């Protein structure tokens, strides 16, 4: 009987031979700020973001030998960082579910009571951000990667380890959810009719 060897041994792409050597110094210099910002956009806390960014580069340093330009360094680092952030979110959620629920309730009550305290633009921005934050992680991460970090769908697919089709379907679902939530706040301009061209 044939005995399969399940560990995929990759033939290095021919282009590898001409690719520059990646060093951790170069990665930190070029991408630390971007990774930190990504972590901040997911975790919403500067201290946690700094921890996540640092852990990301420590993990990257450990597996640098295996980096073969199958993705761009940014995509590779973003994938590591997103996984790290997910772990932090998961741990945080277990401990803070009750606390966050309470905060969310308070936040909603506050919004209902005093929207006039803020400028319209700021209110819209805040409502938009809050609505994005209220999406579940599955749908929030593609939105954050797409709109905050400008990642195209194929890159989001690589970062999140899902297919490009799934990225689109999650973005579609997220947009519809956001629309439902913001529609009730009269956030959209009614007089500016614009159909898809």
């Amino acid at each position, binding site marked *: 009987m044939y005995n399969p060897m399940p560990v995929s041994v990759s033939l290095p792409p021919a282009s590898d031979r001409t690719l520059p050597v990646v060093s951790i110094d170069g990665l930190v210099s070029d991408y630390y700020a971007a990774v930190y910002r990504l972590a901040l956009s997911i975790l919403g806390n500067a201290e946690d973001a700094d921890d996540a960014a640092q852990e990301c580069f420590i993990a990257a340093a450990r597996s640098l030998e295996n980096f073969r330009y199958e993705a761009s360094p940014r995509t590779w680092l973003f994938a590591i960082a997103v996984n790290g952030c997910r772990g932090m979110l998961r741990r945080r959620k277990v401990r803070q579910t009750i606390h966050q629920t309470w905060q969310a309730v308070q936040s909603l009550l506050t919004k209902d009571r005093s929207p006039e305290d803020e400028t319209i633009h700021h209110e819209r921005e805040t409502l938009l951000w809050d609505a994005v934050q209220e999406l579940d992680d599955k749908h929030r991460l593609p939105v954050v990667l797409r709109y905050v970090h400008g990642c195209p769908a194929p890159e989001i697919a690589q970062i999140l380890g899902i297919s490009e089709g799934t990225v689109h379907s999650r*973005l579609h679902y997220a*947009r519809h959810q956001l629309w439902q939530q913001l529609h009730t706040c009269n956030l959209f301009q009614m007089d500016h009719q614009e*159909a898809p061209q």
Partner: protein
Amino acid sequence: MRRPHQRARVLILAHQDGLLSAAQHAELQAHLAVCPDCSQYANQIGQLDRMLTEELPAHVPAPHFSDAALALKLSEIQHQTRRNLMNQRISQTAQKIIWVGSAIVLLIVFVLAVSRLRPQPTAPLPVNETSTPATTPTVEPTAMETPVETPVPSATVQTGPGEYANQEIGIAFQYPAGWTASSDGSRYEGSDGFFAVEELSEPAISLRQACERIANDGSFGETPAVELKNVEDRTYCTILTSLNRAEDNRSAVVIGTNGSETGPKFYVVSVDPTHLENIVSTLSFTKPVPTPAASWVVSTPDPNQPAPDITPAVLEFAGLTIEEYPIVSRDVDTPGHFEFNDRIPAWVFDKHRAVREYNPAARVEQNNQLLEPFGYKFVLKEPAENLIYDLYQSGQVVQADVVSMSPISISESGEKFVLQIDTMTGESMLLQEDGPHPWNPGEHWYIPAVYVGNDLTWVENTSDMNSVAIRKTGEVVFNFKNAGMSPENPIKSLWAWGERWVAEIDGLVFIDGELLNDQLGASEAFNWQMLQGKPFFYFRKDGKVQISYDGEVLPVEYDDVMHYQCCEASAFNPGGNNTMAWFYALRDNTWYYVEIGQYH
């Protein structure tokens, strides 16, 4: 909502990503022209997209890190990376031996010092004035919550109301006043909660593995939350019951001896979830941090010195040839950097090079032979040295630019096959008898699917990268939770062994879901592979690494075998293919390079 409107809304959402074909676009325009509601929806989705694009980034301002700040970050990262690497390299066996040796030496020095300094008493003191309270219980421990753990009462001393101290583990923490201890001191409880301290009887190689084993014992629900924590340079982990099992709440703290990540023993403090935080927040370690008496020495060989003339010890056993080459003392150098390879004479590496080294062309040739009955063939593209292939079926290219492929796995009936192919554009596919199928390796922990008997079997991860599930023909047959505690891939391999599947997860080997470690009494089992169609793997038992082949234990034993290491010379150690295995191993303070194979 009626169907045309539903479809229009799907098209509107797809339009935002530029996914509509010309026909779909025309269809949408036609609908919007006659439907004000959908037209408004399209308008608002367009506005939403612009708002997201223009306003969302402002919520996360781009940070500015000065060169100095980045240099500091880099220094921290490099320091932590080196520290992690060093920690990995310190083997449990070496630590154990050294600690025990140091303890004996210290004890002897202490006894000698005391005997010299203390004036000799003129008359013996009454025994009852100098002896400490008896610490060994005379009462049998009460029944514990889980059978795999044994109560730890022996060294427990209650230091006062509300404070628990355990000299054996080297910990102390506080508990609510009014709780009373069981007769053996291993369990404390009050009207509002309890805690119980037990020793983990199953062997474990590391705190992480101990935590994973306990979290997977079934009593913490489907998604227990495991967290590694540090205090005072020691590490412990907490386990919380998954939220969907609130009716059966359990939480635990897992601690190695003296807070060590490598034990040698591990203890479980079971506690009701309400009081977990009380215990964790007051937890302290009562013994000083043990100083590793030795760490791996790394040195670079002098290129002007010829490699020493080494004579291998050669042994034949169970059809295998075992060749051990003594390389260097552990006091001089350690595998883990490329220069270590320079210590090994070229003739040693050359001897079985042809069998040992991966030959991509041979892999393709072998796959092509096995694919022939299915009508597929990989054809090398010019220029040949780039090793890029087109996949043909019936004279047509069905997949261009294939750059890598796994070995083919064929079903027992011979009617089906599967192999993973990767293309130049970074896409991966699962090639089966009916053609290539989309396959995202990231969703499968980068492990290709295999046929187990006639069942297509593969690995899956959860969206939070936190568990390893194994599916046979779509059905989940195994689920290992909380495997995502480190950035490394927790699952190392999935094999088909006849009708059985074999998965290796962080030093634990599962065969059809049964844990091989438990059957062997091994704290660790690793690098499971098939060698000439028979199982070959390493396992650590009683501190020594042994090797099993085809159900027999080979007559060689090591203090350590480099494995699961990230870098350089030890990154792919041990190595193995269908004919041989090769690895660096430590025995009696000497590093060996070992090759084991069946070359006839």
